[in-house]
């Protein structure tokens, strides 16, 4: 009778006398050790960075404690050159500029992602997707430069006076129009976060289970109803993850923001007013901060930024896990 060719299966004797070859004997533990080493390295790096940041912020932490977060002052010249510092202006600036960026970028990104996955002609999809992803490849410094040369003057000379005229009674638009301010920085951050959110949202929408979409169509749903009832709810966790990724980029952006935000520690109701963020302030002053309390306070700002970023990340993971389990 014909059976499988004997060369396809190991002989019984080979199985009984199996001895691992040298390459296998070294290879497997070697792989384990190397990847364990890489993992340990990554963990050690994070711990080392955290330790350095909190250590060097020591003098400021000892002097101000957690109250540093609530102090609204940044005066390197006070008290005979020792200085008096506080983080409130910068925490406000970071949170507000990032929040505005997310509010503008998220609907835009979701719309672009929907267009690319559901609505665009197939021919158009890949080129547009590539162009959107190219936005993420632009170095921050160049975006900041474009902000100074193009976006800032456009906002300061056209859009802000227009908003001031129409909506000036709202405190948000009540200040003097200025090319350097919170609004310009928020828009630059929007441009930086947009490609990230779009790319991830696109992947999420593209992986919506086909049977759910076909089911909706079979029930007579229009395209918009199908999107609303199937694609968006199914992709909700992924979109939240995308927004968190974009938020992470916005929170930490230093160079582009410091070029357009005006670098003035203050809290004003108007979006047109100059402000400061944690990252931008560190970028501005790190080279010339007075050794002692000045430098320590700057690194305290860095510690706060680190904690905010980690918190945002942890909240995102918890949300995604909760939704996925469901």
């Amino acid at each position, binding site marked *: 009778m014909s059976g499988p060719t004997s060369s396809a299966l190991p002989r019984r004797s080979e199985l009984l006398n199996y001895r691992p070859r040298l390459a296998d004997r070294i290879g497997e533990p070697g792989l384990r050790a190397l990847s364990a080493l890489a993992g340990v390295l990554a963990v050690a790096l994070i711990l080392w960075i955290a330790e350095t940041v909190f250590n060097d912020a020591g003098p400021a932490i000892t002097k101000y404690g957690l109250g540093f977060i609530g102090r609204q002052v940044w005066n390197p010249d006070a008290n005979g050159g020792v200085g008096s510092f506080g983080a409130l202006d910068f925490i406000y600036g970071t949170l507000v500029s990032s929040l505005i960026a997310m509010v503008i970028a998220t609907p835009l990104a979701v719309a672009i992602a929907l267009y690319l996955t559901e609505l665009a002609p197939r021919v158009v999809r890949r080129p547009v997707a590539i162009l959107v992803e190219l936005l993420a490849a632009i170095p921050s410094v160049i975006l900041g430069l474009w902000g100074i040369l193009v976006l*800032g003057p456009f906002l300061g000379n056209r859009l802000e006076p227009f908003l001031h005229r129409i909506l000036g009674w709202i405190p948000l638009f009540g200040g003097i129009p200025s090319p350097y301010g919170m609004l310009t920085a928020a828009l630059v951050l929007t441009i930086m976060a947009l490609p990230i959110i779009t790319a991830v949202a696109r992947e999420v929408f593209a992986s919506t289970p086909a049977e759910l979409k076909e089911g909706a169509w079979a029930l007579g749903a229009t395209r918009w109803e199908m999107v609303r009832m199937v694609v968006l709810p199914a992709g909700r966790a992924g979109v939240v993850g995308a927004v968190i990724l974009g938020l992470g980029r916005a929170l930490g952006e230093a160079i582009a923001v410091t070029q357009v935000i005006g670098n003035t520690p203050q809290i004003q109701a108007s979006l047109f007013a100059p402000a400061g963020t944690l990252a931008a302030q560190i970028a501005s002053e790190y080279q010339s901060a007075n050794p002692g309390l000045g430098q320590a306070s700057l690194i305290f700002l860095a510690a706060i930024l680190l904690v905010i970023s980690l918190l945002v990340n942890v909240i995102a993971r918890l949300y995604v896990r909760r939704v996925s389990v469901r």
Partner: protein
Amino acid sequence: MIVAAIVGGTLALAACGSATPSSGTGSGGRAKALVGAGSTLVAPLMSVWQPTYYKRYGVAITYGAIGSGGGIVQLIARTVDFGASDAPFLRAQAAACHGCLEIPWALAATLVAYHLKGAPNHLRFSGRVLADIWLGRIRRWDDPAIRRLNPHVKLPDTAILPVHRVDGSGDTYAFVDYLDRVSPRFRAEIGPPAPIVNWPGGVGGRGNSGVGGVLSAANGTIAYIAIAYVLQSHFDYGLVENQAGRFPTPGIPSIAAAADALRSVPAGGRRGVSIVDPPASAPDAYPISTFTYVLVPTATRPGIAPTLRRFISWAVTAGQRFGPKLDFAPLPQAVVRADLADVRLIR
């Protein structure tokens, strides 16, 4: 921190380069390279000194224009051989530096530049008006106080946006020094001169070039910038009233007049020399002139001292002739004499 690491690395390489003794200079060898950092005001002059000095003496000088405040910090940390600053040490910085000298080696000025569509060049300002602009009390260009000084000019109704430096700057020091003297209100609100102060409002830029960028991008801005940048970038700049009631054009003659009004030069290279707001006995003096200093330790690394002494002696004598084309006035003779005496203190 990162700059310290990079500059420290460069320093290590330079030290390797100077390990080979040069011919005919005795035991131990003389360093062939110097590393410095600091003021952006003196950077144009430094970039002319570097190739000239290398061609003449074979010594390579590396300079990082990171702002006067940065120069002070790097010298205190001893990551550089010399610092450059338009601002003298604050008391705490002098203590932290452990016996450092400030030797004035160039003479320049800080101008008040502005960008205002519809207004001519050379608008006139007084010290009080400038103080009130930066304090946020004068908010529009057609304010009566500005109009009074410029009676024949039609000033537009644009908002004023005062610009300042966010990094540690000798121009900030000189400007605040001047405003403190002419406006008691400014002194009370802002405090004594320092490389970084707490400005109420306005917009911040990094370095002279950053502030210049803010100026060119926005209408209605006014800023204090080193003279070389203002003239090279062709910004409009203001004429500032001095104590004699005149509005001298900032330039070599008016800066030299301010330096000549010096009564005495403090010895021993300490404490800096302030020449802002010169008395009425110098009617042609520009009121916001400033020396810029080289900051050196009295105790240097081996091999550095002779090279450093020769470089600074050259800079305050032969090096001065490169100044006028870049809008640096020549040092007064009394200052040069004091400098050459102080240079001998570098060991």
